[in-house]
C-alpha cells in the first residue's frame, strides 16, 4: 500500500503505534464479507476502505459505522467496495467499535516535522474543533511531563478534554508516548491519531495515519 504520498500501511502503522503502548482499537484487513462477520463475532463493528488516494475517508464516504449482523456487514462490504473502486488500490478494514456514550470525548494527537526544529507533537480537541477554532497546542519533541501538562493548559478546550484527573493523566501519558514514538522513528514524518476517543476509564485511537 506504498503510495506516492508516503502513507504507511494501516496495519504497519497500527503495530508501530501499539508497540509504544498507545492504545488503538483492534482491527484487521478483510477480503470478504464472511471474514468481516467472523471478525465481528456478534458485536457491531466499523468498516473502512483504505487507499493512499483518499486521505479523508469520511468525506469520501469510505467509512461505515456500527455495522451489526451478517446482513448489514454484507451490505456495507459491497457498498464500500463500490465506492472505493475509484481509489484503487484499496483495502477493506474491519475494526472493533468503541462503545458510544454521551460522556465520550474526542481528541486529536498528531506529529509533524519542521525543517528547523525537527519533530513536533500536537494536541487538540477532536472533530471539527481543532480546525474550525484552531485551538491546538504544539511542542518540539521530545517533551517532558511538564510540557505535556502545559499543552493541555494552553488550550481553550483544555478543561473539556481533561475533565477529571484521570483523563488528564491519560492525555499526558498518551502525549509522552507519541513524542517518544516520533523521536525514535526518524522515518515517521507525520502522524495523525484522529480521533482518539476518551471513553470510560481508558482511551482508544480509532483512526491513525502515518506519513513517511
Amino acid at each position: 500500500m506504498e503510495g506516492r504520498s508516503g502513507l504507511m500501511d494501516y496495519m504497519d502503522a497500527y503495530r508501530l503505534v501499539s508497540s509504544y503502548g498507545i492504545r488503538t482499537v483492534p482491527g484487521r484487513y478483510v477480503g470478504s464479507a464472511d471474514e468481516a462477520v467472523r471478525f465481528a463475532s456478534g458485536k457491531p463493528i466499523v468498516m473502512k476502505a483504505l487507499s493512499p488516494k483518499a486521505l479523508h475517508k469520511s468525506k469520501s464516504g469510505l467509512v461505515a459505522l456500527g455495522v451489526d449482523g451478517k446482513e448489514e456487514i454484507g451490505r456495507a462490504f459491497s457498498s464500500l467496495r463500490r465506492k472505493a473502486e475509484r481509489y484503487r488500490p484499496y483495502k477493506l478494514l474491519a475494526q472493533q467499535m468503541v462503545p458510544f456514550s454521551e460522556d465520550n470525548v474526542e481528541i486529536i494527537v498528531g506529529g509533524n516535522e519542521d525543517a528547523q526544529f525537527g519533530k513536533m507533537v500536537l494536541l487538540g480537541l477532536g472533530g471539527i474543533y481543532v480546525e474550525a477554532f484552531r485551538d491546538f497546542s504544539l511542542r518540539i519533541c521530545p517533551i517532558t511531563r511538564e510540557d505535556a501538562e502545559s499543552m493541555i493548559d494552553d488550550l481553550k478546550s483544555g478543561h473539556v478534554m481533561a475533565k477529571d484527573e484521570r483523563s488528564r493523566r491519560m492525555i499526558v501519558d498518551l502525549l509522552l508516548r507519541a513524542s517518544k514514538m516520533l523521536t525514535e522513528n526518524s522515518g515517521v514524518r507525520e502522524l495523525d491519531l484522529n480521533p482518539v476517543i476518551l471513553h470510560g476509564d481508558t482511551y482508544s485511537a480509532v483512526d491513525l495515519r502515518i506519513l513517511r
Partner: protein
Amino acid sequence: MSHYSSFKFMMEPRSVAVVGASDNPKKVGHIILQNFIDMGYAGKIYPVNINSTGRIAGLKSYKSLRDIGESVDFVVIAVPAEVVPSVLDDCGAAKSKSVVVVSGGFAEVGSVELQRQLADKAKKYGFALLGPNCLGVMNMRNHVNTMFLPLYKFDSPKLGGVSFASQSGAVGSTVLDMVSNEGFGIAKFISYGNAVDLDEVDILDYLAHDPDTRVIIFYLEGVKRGREFLEAAKRTTKVKPVVVIKGGMSPAGASAVRSHTASLAGSYQAYEAAFRQSGIVQADSLDDLLDYAKIFETEPLSKGPSVAVITNGGGAGVLATDSIYDNRLVMPELEKETAATLRKAMPPIVNIRLPLDMAGDADDKRFEAALNAIGGDPNVDMIITIALFQTPGADSAVAASIINYKAGITKPLVVVSSGGSYTQAHRRMMESSNVPVYSSPEQAARALAALYKYSKTRGAIRKTK
C-alpha cells in the same frame, strides 16, 4: 558560552580599527569613525583606508591592518562587499581578535558565493565574525558603537539593563530610537544581519552570561540552528527573561494531500512552540516588545495571577478589570482585615471592593492608604495603580506617594497614566524612579500577563493545592 570572549572583544575592546575610514562625510566608514571619536571612546582608534595619506579625522591612519603592528581587539569593516574577503585576510595576518562586517551586498542580494568566502575565512583564521549586512554592536557603558547613523538623526537611549539583539538593522535602530522615549535603558545592542558566523545561539549565550544584561529582547526572522537555539533559550530563561518578536509568518502546510497535523502545524507554529517550550515570552508587536522590556527591567517576579486595581477614575478601573480577565489573569477578593482598614481610610462614597475606585478627589493620602492596605493583602499578587492626573485630587504628591510606596514593596506594581503635558511630567517623574508607567489599562494588563507567564517559567508561583 563558546563565543563569550569574542563578544567581549567587540563590546569591551582596548583597541578598534575602522577599515574604510574616511574624511568624506558621506562614507559609512567616516560616520563610524567619527562616532567613536565624538562619543568619547577611551581605547585606541586606528583608521584604515587603502588610499590613506597618513591622517584621517585627525588621527594617524594606515593603509592596511598589517601596518598597525598590534593585534587589534575589534575590527569594523565598512568597505564594498567584493573587497571584504581580502580585508579578512589582513585580519588573519594581523591576528585581529574580533570582526564586524557592516557592509551589505552578500546573500541578501544573491551573492551567496561571496558570503561563503566570509564564513570560510572566519573559520580559517579563527576569529569571530559578526554580520555581514548589519549595524554591528553598541555598548552603552563604554561608548563602543559601530552604528553608521549620524548622531543627530537618532536619540540615544539611556543606560540600563535591557539588551537588544536584532537580525534587522532597520528594526534595530528604530527600536533604539523609540526606547529613548521610554523609562528604561539599554545595556548592549547587537545587530547581526546575515549571521555567517556568530548567530542567534551565540548571541543568546553571550547575553545570558553578560552581567550588565538583566533583560534580553530579540527581533528575529528565523534561526539557523533550531535545536541549539531551543537549548540556549532554555538555559537563558532560567536566569533572565527573554522577549522575542518574530518577523515573517510562513503559511502552514499549503498542500491538501497531507495530514491534519501538518496542515495546522507549520513553520510559524513551530517557532511559537519553541518559544513557549523554552520559556521565551513572545511579543506580538514592537509596542508589546517595549512594554514587556519595561516591566521586566524593573519588576520582581509574581507569585500568582491575582491583580488588584486601585484607581481615581471609575471607567478606567472597569476597563482594567476587563483587560485583566482578557489576559487570563484574575482579580482577587480582599481579606476582611484589608477591607476594614480601607473602610476607615476612605470616605463613605468609596465602595470597598476591587477595582478600588477612590473617586476623582483622591489625593496622595488616599493613594498611600490604599497602596499600603492592598499591597499587604496576601490575596494580591500584583497591582495596577491608575493615576489620572486630570482629576482634581491628583498632583505631584500623588506621584511621590506612588514612588515612595514602590521603593518598599516586593510585589510587581505598574501605573496607568495617560494625558497631556501635565501627565507626561508626572510620568517621567515616576519612570525615572523605576515605576513602570503605561498609557492604557490594556497595555498594563498585557505586560503583567507577560510577567506572570515568565514567573511560571521560573517556578516563582506559590502552590495553591
